[in-house]
């Protein structure tokens, strides 16, 4: 072609051809489908099989859900409307939703109180969960337990105030004495708190709760999903610090502290939670005189907290063990004392490693709160199994109720898990 001249060529393109759209098989949805759903014969078969299964599931459940009846007041009436058709009777939810959420004894005109407590929980938890927020918000977090107690249980405001005063007095004494020695500060703080509580309890007049601003609600009247949330939040937030203390105690050089922590952890981990709950509800009643029984809610909280703190302690011990010994030695060489080294060097790293394990236990613990239904507390599962299914109107409705409970639990647990993933990304210091 060396003798080919420009003049001898009939047409010479002087501009670039405008880019054509890629063929439909190489881009866009068709390509995505081919690459992801039908890349090989085997995968294509699997895709078809999976689609068939999905269709099978949806074709039976969707009409059942979408055709659901929402406005009858008994199962019999609902079945009459359905007239042999298979569809859900969601009217049990519209009629009994308040019982599923709050239990059957919480007065309905007071539902705003737990609602407000839940709303405030988000504000109180925010500075703990998202540490970019201003640290001053933590003051509200510190006050929140007392506000929530007062809102949910009602009664005299003096009780939470005295409790708060005890904590403040304990902290002040601790802050003053801790410079001399930690043990002195610790014991002094506890003594001060106990003294304030004792005096305060003596000062609260008899029957103060009867004419209080918020009507007092006994623990027995709490129930529904509210009870699950309360148990979950209280026990997780209590068991985390106790778990850290146990994990550190287990590594202590003092044989007494180490022994107590090891025995506690191993004993609690060796006993099923349901056994502890039975002990809380049945056995403890024998040890107290009939008139002075400790509140059942409190007994359950103590048992679940003990249980989960033993597990959290082991998770954190795993985090501590993962740290190289050099971290401790570096802290020593900087001249930090034990408390400083733990607070500034060891725990931040160990806790970061332990996040997935802690979240795992928190999610498991939250779901375990439904076990309280076996000791005749009416949490959401207890409400479903007991009063609602035993009412003449709704005897025989299962799927709708249990689906509702699963949706509630799923929302909360998925939220916890998403938060922990965000936290891990936020704290990631390894450079990948």
């Amino acid at each position, binding site marked *: 072609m060396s003798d080919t001249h420009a003049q001898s060529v009939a047409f010479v393109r002087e501009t670039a051809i405008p880019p054509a759209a890629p063929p439909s098989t190489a881009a866009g949805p068709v390509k995505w489908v081919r690459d992801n759903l039908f890349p090989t014969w085997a995968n294509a078969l699997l895709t078809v099989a999976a689609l068939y299964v999905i269709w099978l599931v949806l074709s039976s459940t969707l009409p059942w859900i979408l055709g659901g009846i929402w406005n009858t007041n008994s199962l019999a009436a609902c079945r009459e409307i359905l007239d042999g058709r298979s569809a859900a009777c969601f009217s049990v939810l519209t009629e009994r939703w308040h019982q599923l959420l709050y239990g059957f004894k919480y007065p309905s005109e007071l539902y705003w109180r737990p609602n407000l407590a839940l709303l405030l929980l988000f504000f109180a938890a925010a500075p703990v969960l998202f540490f970019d927020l201003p640290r001053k918000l933590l003051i509200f977090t510190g006050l929140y337990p007392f506000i929530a107690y007062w809102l949910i249980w009602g009664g005299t405001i003096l009780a939470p105030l005295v409790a708060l005063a005890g904590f403040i007095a304990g902290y002040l004494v601790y802050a003053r004495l801790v410079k001399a020695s930690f043990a002195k500060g610790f014991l002094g703080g506890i003594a001060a708190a106990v003294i304030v509580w004792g005096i305060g309890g003596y000062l609260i007049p008899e029957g103060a709760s009867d004419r209080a601003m918020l009507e007092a609600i006994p623990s027995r009247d709490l129930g529904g999903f509210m009870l699950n949330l309360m148990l979950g939040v209280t026990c997780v937030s209590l068991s985390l610090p106790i778990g850290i203390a146990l994990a550190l105690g287990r590594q202590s050089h003092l044989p007494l502290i180490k022994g107590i922590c090891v025995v506690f952890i191993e004993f609690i981990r060796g006993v099923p939670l349901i056994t502890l709950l039975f002990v809380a509800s049945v056995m403890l009643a024998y040890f*107290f005189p009939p008139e002075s029984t400790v509140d059942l809610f409190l007994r359950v909280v103590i048992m679940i907290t003990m249980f989960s703190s033993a597990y959290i302690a082991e998770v954190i011990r795993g985090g501590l063990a993962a740290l190289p010994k050099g971290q401790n030695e570096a802290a020593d060489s900087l001249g930090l004392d034990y408390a400083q080294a733990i607070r500034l060097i060891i725990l931040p790293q160990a806790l970061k490693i332990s996040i997935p394990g802690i979240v795992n236990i928190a999610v498991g613990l939250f779901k375990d709160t439904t076990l309280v239904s076996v000791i005749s507390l009416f949490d959401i599962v207890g409400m479903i199994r007991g009063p609602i299914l035993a*009412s*003449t109107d709704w*005897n025989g409705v299962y799927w709708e109720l249990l689906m509702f409970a699963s949706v509630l639990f799923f929302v909360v647990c998925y939220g916890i898990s998403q938060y922990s993933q965000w936290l891990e990304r936020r704290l990631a210091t390894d450079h990948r």
Partner: protein
Amino acid sequence: MNKSMIFGALTVAGLAAGAAGAATLDDVKARGTLNCGVTTGLIGFAAPDANGEWKGFDVAVCRAVAAAVLGDATAVEFVPTTGKTRFTALASGEIDVLARNTTWTFSRDVDLKFDFIGVNYYDGQGFMVPKALGVSSAKDLDGATVCIQTGTTTELNLADFFRVNNISYEPVPIETNAEAQQQYLAGACDVYTTDASGLAATRAAFENPGDHVLLPEIVSKEPLGPLVRHGDSEWGDVVRWTLNALIAAEELGVSSANVGEMASSTNNPEIARLLGTEGELGAMLGLDADWAKRAIETQGNYGEIFATNIGEDTPIGLARGLNAQWTDGGLLYSPPFR
């Protein structure tokens, strides 16, 4: 836990047992409420309604006692108990009376140290099978899988029945009646057995009740009644005679509608003694004269309680059967009020 704590706890437990043994009646009056143990939910017998009010056949007994003792049928603290926690709740003093369709048996009365104060429902254990199974007698159930509630007398009766008839079965243990219903409908067991009243109520809730039959055999006696702790006969008497008052009221034709009129204008001396216009019966119990009148006024007589909660006009639809008055061929027979 160190030693002194254990001893301390034991001492407290001892004191508690001692305290619980003393006058329950005074405790209830001082407290102003009656602590009554009920089920966590059994259709027709005890369950809270949409407003959270406890309703049912056993609940009515609690309310009648509260009306008699405290003058207020609503002054009852209902303590829900499961089949496993009910006896400890009563023994530990957490509740004053247990009205939880509990079968009166020798060992519960003697060995567990409770006093059954009477029978408010005569029941017996029956079997329910799907019609499609084609079984007409419980003796044909050789090799069947049976749904059975654990921790109840029905479990033991079932074993006895199959042993006596020399046939085999496979138990499927379940916890609550609601669970049993679903297991049975899902085909996890061929047979569901529990008290006949429970079977009738369960079947009534099915979508197609006609597809299931109750077998004719009743394999046990299940006298269900309220119970109190041993060792406090005064309190036992109060509960016993409140129940008897409800039964006697039906026999004597006293109902919630006419009790006021009866009290003022009756010529029948027994009605007058029952309603406190004659004699000193209330004072003998440590109550006022109107105790029985209040119980009947608020709850109705036995027949009314039966009809509103579990009778033939309710979805449960139980016939009176053994629970009719002795004058109608049943077993209900109150000792005379004299």
